[in-house]
């Protein structure tokens, strides 16, 4: 009888992917989204201060994941106001027209010990490109971290119009580094039924 209930509970998850009541992880404030770009031949690091990550992910059932990250482009911070203004401007991020950059994926596969790859779409400005985003999911010192980095070409997304498409003085490659500290939305010890069912499969 208990097996039956579990099966019934499992059914919607397998058929529809995500059950409505599957709560996303809570993303802690000390999470960060940084990037490393090249200017005048030298690397500098900047960050986005505001972004929202909606992460449904269980390392034991990665096939049921969905990741959605929305970055507030206006929150770009390179610790230098003049440069931030240029980045917000029409030739680079154009934050007025495109206030958000997004990544979303419904397809995560295992890629080794604690390592996964999320296949999804990255949208910056009005350009969308498929992206296979590698990340690690680890429990360390009682904390859960989802982190990774990937290098993209800014010109694939039109970040650099006109003279800013020059790659000698503003490098084409931009490394994106994220470190999310996650907290379970469920009270300690309580896990949703479907995850237990998947895990023991």
């Amino acid at each position, binding site marked *: 009888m208990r097996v039956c209930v579990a099966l019934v509970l499992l059914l919607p998850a397998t058929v529809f992917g995500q059950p409505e009541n599957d709560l996303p992880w809570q993303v802690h404030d000390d999470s960060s989204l940084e990037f490393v770009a090249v*200017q*005048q*031949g*030298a*690397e*500098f*690091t*900047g960050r986005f201060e505001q972004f929202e990550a909606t992460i449904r992910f269980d390392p034991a059932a990665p096939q049921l994941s969905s990741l959605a990250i929305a970055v507030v482009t206006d929150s770009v911070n*390179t*610790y*230098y*106001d003049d*440069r931030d203004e*240029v980045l917000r401007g029409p030739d680079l991020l154009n934050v007025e027209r495109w206030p958000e950059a997004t990544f979303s994926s419904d397809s995560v596969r295992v890629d080794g010990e604690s390592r996964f790859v999320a296949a999804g779409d990255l949208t910056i400005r009005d350009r969308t490109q498929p992206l296979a985003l590698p990340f690690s999911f680890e429990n360390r010192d009682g904390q859960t971290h989802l982190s990774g980095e990937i290098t993209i070409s800014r010109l694939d997304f039109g970040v650099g119009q006109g*003279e*800013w498409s*020059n790659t000698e*003085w*503003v490098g084409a490659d931009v490394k994106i580094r994220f470190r999310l500290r996650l907290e379970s939305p469920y009270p300690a010890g309580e896990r949703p039924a479907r995850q237990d069912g998947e895990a023991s499969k």
Partner: protein
Amino acid sequence: MHLRNTETSFGLVSQLLHWLIAALVLWQFVLAQLAGNASLFERLVLLGRHKSVGMTILMLAVVRLLWKLVNPRPVILPGLPRYHRALARLSHGLMYALIFALPLTGWLMSSALNTPVSYFGFFTWPDLVEPQQELGDLLALVHAYLFMLLAGTIAVHASAALFHHFVVKDSVLRGMLPGMNR
């Protein structure tokens, strides 16, 4: 022609370093001026060059100072009035200090503004301080004022040299021309 200085004249190395640094300082000024009136992108390009050339001056300044230390110091023309010679010595000392101070404030400013200094794209100089915009803005002012001080000193210095050459008609300028003795 001699490479090293003697008690009475500059050697070729001192002479070449003098004019090479003089030319690069002038070029620095030109690049900075052009950057002031350029589009934001051109400003990035011009200041990128300015930073690399500035670091070249810093390295040449180190070489020049070391070379000066291991060479005899040619006496400033003995026939001159004492205050003239004191003035010459003062302006030389000031210019030596400033060819260090300008690149160093520039480098510090760039570090503080989180715009690290590449050397013509070959390598990147380490940052001297953590990013902190207020410090960077302050250093940009210091850098600009130090340049005014340098420009003023150079103006006096160069006028004095030309005055010696064309009016007094002595050998001060010739003494600094590569391969010549005074």
